[in-house]
């Protein structure tokens, strides 16, 4: 994969931004003066809007993002413009640093790497495999040639590095695209800790969640249904018509797992009106959907293992007269489910919770649901409606940051401020800290075990001891970080006063550990 030109362009852009952000702050103030300035700018609508735009549409301010915002007419205009910008970005390949490219290799290549590791491990069962890259791996350093015996681990770590980079470098990845990638990955969650899922998580992230982040929901859902990560995660890969021939003369059959979660979590919701019989019927419709290691999309429909009988899912019968049977049955039912009013309602509510408030105004959810139905689930239409709504901008609709929000916003704020370590655009030590923080906070990256995805609400994440661990992360992240004066206008009077009394070396960490930085 040739990624050099965009990488270079990115570095050039970053250098420009560094010059902008270096020395005196963007406010023309510095040090104690910046923190102690008297006027309480946090109360102004422009500041509140800017904070909200950067923290919810993306993962918070960086000096570069602030200057981008300042060149727009206002924050609301900027936010709305991100919808089309993010869509355009989603149609291009992501920027991937040269040492990370394996994670986003083609699916046949990923399958091959998995196979090779399996063979090496079988051959070396009695001997211990020497892990030459153990130390480098702990530092997320992939400069040495990939050890094929540790293919899965390397791919998982590369994915993590790319992900945190994409969520903390608004000049490398459109911030709204990174946000929507998070939302959809979590809505159609897969768990990197399940062995077979592990090497495909990064590819799923890029080619499913990111690629369809601002398209039609049904296209996203279908891409997810066909991807090896999802096929393995919810065991669809093994689900076949009852009585199909299996190994050693035994028979194989149905597995309900994917069908149930497709109804309960991905589309209709638990009160969406389906019964146990619908779960069974849907599982039968999807029999034969499995992985295709040699296929470019990793998917294969095995007609021999498909249940050709008549199935009825919520009153819809398959095979249908219009479209015929086989693989089309599954595609048809998935599109039908994606367009269902219960799905429209569920997606709208979840988007409103993610972007607006833990208990979003019902009127907003109702409007989003209408937009969903009118546009057949066009995410761009929904996001424009949402970002143009008064509810999104209303100061009373507060959102407490999840650990993921907190980690990414802290990384965003600090990356361009850290003196270059020669390690490339992202300081990998910072990423190690962030990954540890996320795991300790109960939100390990790509590590939510169950298919519901993590919740986003304060009821889950605002816990007393957990708050103090945010302070740990903030302070260890900023050991060599100069003061983050650009954050000053967004912090309240009390926090600024407290910071002005502290040693300069602590100010960056304290700004990130402050109550003001806990909300988005």
């Amino acid at each position, binding site marked *: 994969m040739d990624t050099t030109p965009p990488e270079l362009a990115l570095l050039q852009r970053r250098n420009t931004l560094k010059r902008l952000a270096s020395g005196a702050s963007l406010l023309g103030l510095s040090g104690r003066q910046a923190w102690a300035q008297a006027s309480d700018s946090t109360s102004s609508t422009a500041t509140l809007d800017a904070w909200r735009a950067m923290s919810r549409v993306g993962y918070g301010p960086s000096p570069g993002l602030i200057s981008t915002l300042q060149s727009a007419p206002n924050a609301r205009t900027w936010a709305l413009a991100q919808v089309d910008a993010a869509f355009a970005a989603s149609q291009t390949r992501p920027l991937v640093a040269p040492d990370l490219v394996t994670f986003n290799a083609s699916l046949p290549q990923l399958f091959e790497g998995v196979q090779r590791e399996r063979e090496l491990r079988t051959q070396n069962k009695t001997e211990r495999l020497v892990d030459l890259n153990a130390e480098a791996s702990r530092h997320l350093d992939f400069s040495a040639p990939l050890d094929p015996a540790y293919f899965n681990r390397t791919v998982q770590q590369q994915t993590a590095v790319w992900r945190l980079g994409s969520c903390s470098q608004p000049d490398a990845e459109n911030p709204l695209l990174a946000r929507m990638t998070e939302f959809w990955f979590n809505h159609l969650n897969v768990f990197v800790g399940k062995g077979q899922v592990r090497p495909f998580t990064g590819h799923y992230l890029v080619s499913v969640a990111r690629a369809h982040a601002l398209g039609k929901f049904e296209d996203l859902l279908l891409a997810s249904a066909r991807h090896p990560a999802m096929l393995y995660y919810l065991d669809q890969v093994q689900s076949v018509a009852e009585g199909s021939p299996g190994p050693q003369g035994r028979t194989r059959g149905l597995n309900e797992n994917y069908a149930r979660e497709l109804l309960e979590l991905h589309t209709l919701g638990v009160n969406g009106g389906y019964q146990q019989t619908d779960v069974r019927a849907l599982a039968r419709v999807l029999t034969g959907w499995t992985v295709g290691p040699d296929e470019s999309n990793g998917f294969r429909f095995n007609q021999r293992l498909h249940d050709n009988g008549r199935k009825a899912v919520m009153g819809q019968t398959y095979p249908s007269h219009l479209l015929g049977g086989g693989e089309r049955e599954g595609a048809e039912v998935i599109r039908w489910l994606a367009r269902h009013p219960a799905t429209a309602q569920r997606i709208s509510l979840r988007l409103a919770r993610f972007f607006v408030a833990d208990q979003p105004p019902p009127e907003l959810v*109702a409007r989003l649901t209408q937009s969903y139905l009118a546009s057949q689930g066009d995410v761009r239409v929904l996001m424009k409606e949402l970002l143009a709504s008064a509810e999104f901008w209303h100061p009373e609709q507060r959102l407490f940051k999840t650990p993921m929000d907190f980690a990414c916003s802290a990384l965003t704020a600090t990356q361009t401020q850290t003196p270059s370590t020669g390690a490339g655009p992202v300081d990998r030590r910072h990423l190690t800290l962030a990954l540890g923080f996320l795991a300790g906070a109960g939100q390990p990256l790509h590590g939510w075990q169950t298919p519901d995805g993590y919740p986003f609400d304060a009821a889950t994440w*605002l816990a007393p*001891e957990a708050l103090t661990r945010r302070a740990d992360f903030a302070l260890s992240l900023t050991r060599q970080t100069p003061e983050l004066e650009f954050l000053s206008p967004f912090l309240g009077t009390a926090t600024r006063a407290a910071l002005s009394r502290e040693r300069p070396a602590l100010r960056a960490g304290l700004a990130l550990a402050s109550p003001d930085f806990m909300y988005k």
Partner: protein
Amino acid sequence: MPPPATPNLNRRLLLQTLSAGTSFWAAPALWAQTTAAPGKIAAQAHPTGLDGNIDSNGRLVVVFLRGAYDGLSALVPHADPHYYRLRPNIAIAAPDGSAQSTLALDAQFGLHPALAGLAPLWQQGLLGVIPAAGSPDPTRSHFDAQYHWELGMPSLSGAGTGWLNRLAAPFSRTVALGVGEANPLMLSGPAPVQLVPRGLAATRQGVLGDERTRQAVMNLYSGDDALSKAFRAGADSRIQTAQTLSAGASQNAMMRSEMVAANNGAGSPQGLLLDAQHLGTLMRQNRHLRLGFLSAGGWDTHANQGAANGNLAQNLGNLSTALLQLRRDFSEANDVVLVCSEFGRTTAENGTRGTDHGHGNALWLMGNAVQGGRWHGQWHGLAPDRLHEGRDLPVHHDFRAVIAQVLLRSQGLDRHALALLFPGFAWDASLNGLMRA
């Protein structure tokens, strides 16, 4: 996900009432000397508030196995031919004395060989089981069922106050401790609870360990707002937690592999042992803590769950180790450990040598006050006409009725308090022998 128009407004109201927490639940009388409980319950009434006086009520630890563990592999109905018919590839072999077969407990049931470590507890009468318990609500959604269990109200989903939190509400001190999850619903609500993270992170003071840095951080949270108060409470709790656990760490011979597993943050069953050690140490050192919560994931075995060996066997082995650890720390007269899961799995194996979502399940109790060494309640076998919807183990005993027996006996709650704790549940007299008199 609530539907747009709910027909269950009264349920909503109930939920709101319960969420209001303290006002509803504050009467110390709820914890007063029980009248209904038999035997020598030494619960004391503290009309002026319940802290400051450690009574002889036991401590309760709930171990929640998220993902619906396969009880029919843990408590094996080895005498039932239907069991072997339904599970041609994944049944645990009938007892033959080998380590690959069921360990017989009696003529009907036996333990999975990975749970062999628990057999002595059974023989000593400290471990008991209700083979077909669960929620009366028939949902097969993990998430709905977990809501029901954690709120203690079948058919109620959504935010609310967990039943362990409601139990903690009458005390002005913190009496409930959760180790592992960020904020488990069973513990969440208005009463303060101590929440400790999974794994070794719990043992570290972090920035709070340095006086000067701590002061700088605390200065940011000196206000009267809720967030500042939460931060200050968190800082106090964390310093104490880390000090207690560091002091206790030398007593715990922790294997490195377990530590590593515990630190992956995913709630692996391997991590359960370390969390159990932490829970035990913290509740031993702080005797005000009387309600504990632990959880482990990884039980949703839809495919290739294995039999005597395999994925599930490994999980059960880890659970067994953790329970033995808990037994060391919770062995006083009225201490009880409850092991449960949101629902059971299908009695039949599916087409991929796993099991799908079912209904009734085995619920375990461990403690001196438990009438152990035997199983309790109804069991009608796995014949087709005995199954729920023709496929699942039925729920013969409401989980709330089981917990009520435990609370009445070991926590000194009376029937009135139990009715308030679990609105609408019915006392199940067929379980009256569950606890020792």
